[in-house]
């Protein structure tokens, strides 16, 4: 497949893709890699890393397996990050397409809503929503998505405004194509690629936001998250710093991985476009 090969063609993309595949595998096979509930007590409390083979990364102040927490936390982080980004981009694309394509009053109204959401700090919005609606995974995902959809909406609208002036859209209109079909078939696929390059940033931000919410005790209490682990490690930061450092590292690695993949995709898209221009050849 061409896109995959292109992503591996860049250093950032290749490293990012390998790391991300690894993280995804860990997330998918978390129950196999570390069976049982990671919130169960697994051994003596505050066991330091590398002191017991069965619990290689030690235990927290309640005696829970740190490695199990990190493995299952991968699952939470990726799920929330991907789901929130998907929701944010889907919403942004729909609103941006509607605004750019309809123009006039609809555009004006929708963009004021976008403005409102863009001015509100995403984290505060998420904080408010989760404290009101309660901390469960779907609410967290929704709360993060609501703070992140404005940027893709704005970019999508700009793309649509430029594309709808192209000759091929005029040609579709002259052909008698229904406006909805024009929006979906002619404009959407051509407007989408730059918007998708926002995905990496949104996923990374969503993962960080989720951790921050959990850190503040606003994560789903029945699920292990890195944010909760970091927060709980804080109380014993002097005697057992690894309890905060290890999940923190996991968070950093994941965010960097997502960033690298995003860079790879962006570069691949840029190259793909250059390739297209090359193939156009001279007129006639």
């Amino acid at each position, binding site marked *: 497949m061409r896109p995959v090969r292109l992503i591996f063609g860049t250093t950032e993309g290749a490293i990012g893709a390998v790391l991300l595949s690894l993280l995804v595998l860990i997330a998918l096979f978390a129950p196999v890699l570390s069976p049982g509930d990671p919130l169960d007590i697994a051994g003596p409390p505050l066991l330091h890393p590398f002191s017991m083979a069965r619990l290689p990364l030690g235990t927290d102040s309640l005696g829970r397996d740190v490695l199990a927490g990190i493995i299952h936390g991968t699952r939470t982080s990726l799920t929330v990050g991907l789901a929130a980004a998907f929701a944010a981009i889907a919403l942004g694309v729909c609103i941006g397409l509607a605004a750019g394509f309809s123009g006039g009053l609809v555009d004006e109204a929708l963009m004021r809503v976008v403005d409102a959401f863009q001015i509100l700090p995403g984290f505060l919005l998420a904080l408010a929503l989760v404290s009101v609606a309660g901390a469960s995974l779907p609410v967290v995902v929704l709360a993060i998505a609501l703070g992140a959809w404005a940027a893709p909406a704005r970019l999508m609208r700009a793309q649509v405004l430029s594309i709808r002036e192209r000759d091929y859209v*005029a040609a579709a209109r*002259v052909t008698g194509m229904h406006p909805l079909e024009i929006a979906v078939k002619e404009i959407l696929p051509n407007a989408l690629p730059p918007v998708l390059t926002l995905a990496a940033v949104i996923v990374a931000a969503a993962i960080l936001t989720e951790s921050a919410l959990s850190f503040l005790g606003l994560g789903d209490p029945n699920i292990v998250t890195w944010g909760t682990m970091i927060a709980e490690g804080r109380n014993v930061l002097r005697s057992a710093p690894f309890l905060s450092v290890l999940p923190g590292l996991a968070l950093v690695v994941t965010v960097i991985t997502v960033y690298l993949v995003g860079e790879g995709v962006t570069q691949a898209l840029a190259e793909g476009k250059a390739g*297209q221009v090359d*193939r156009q050849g*001279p*007129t*006639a």
Partner: protein
Amino acid sequence: MTLLAVSSLTKRYVSGTRPVTALDDVSLTLDRGQTLGLAGVSGSGKSTLARILLRLMPADGGMVRFEADDWLSLSGRDLRRRRARMQMVFQDVLGAFNPRATVGSVLDDPLRIHSPLKERDRRTEIAALLDRVGLQAALATRSIRDVSGGQRQRVAIARAIATRPSLIVLDEAVSALDVSVRETILRLLVELQQERGIAYLFISHDLAVLRAVSHRIAVMDAGRIVECGPAGDVIERPRSDAARSLVAAVPRLVIRG
């Protein structure tokens, strides 16, 4: 028999502070199966007229009768259905196609929208259309990006005739093509006209091209039609300054004089 009657069309663009009058009381008529050449220097309003006729932008005033319709007052479903009768071919041979399209899908759209044909029959029809414009049926599966400029313009013509229009508006349709390709495309257009009785509004700043295809020629200057008459008359005995300077600009080809 009159196919198209444009009367007192006006259009002003308001961009920035100063409005530009792009069309100023434009009237013209075009008979069935005839070609009206539309000449004029850059910025004289030719494309504006084309875009208004194609219902791609609204006019500020005036009236257009096309076939039996009050053309500018059609809207929605009625307009989409009637659009089959008036098609276009534009200058930009690449920009006129969705970059993701294949040659086949470009031709399938108008057939799907306007003809009762089922998918299988549409494929046969697409092959026939390609053949009619001098392209191989095998081209249907190719990406539009992977065919040459001349081939693309043939595809654009095939798309335009797919809905069996009575009028095709061609805006600088051959200007981007090199001279040898230009001639074969012009020949194809003339053949199609004789065969199907299609009228053309043929826009070009090149009088030599217009002379080759037009029955009548209209000359625009600053948004007005300043001269309109049989092609030969306008070129041999231009009456307006605009027409005279266009005629003077026609390159005289001299080979080893």
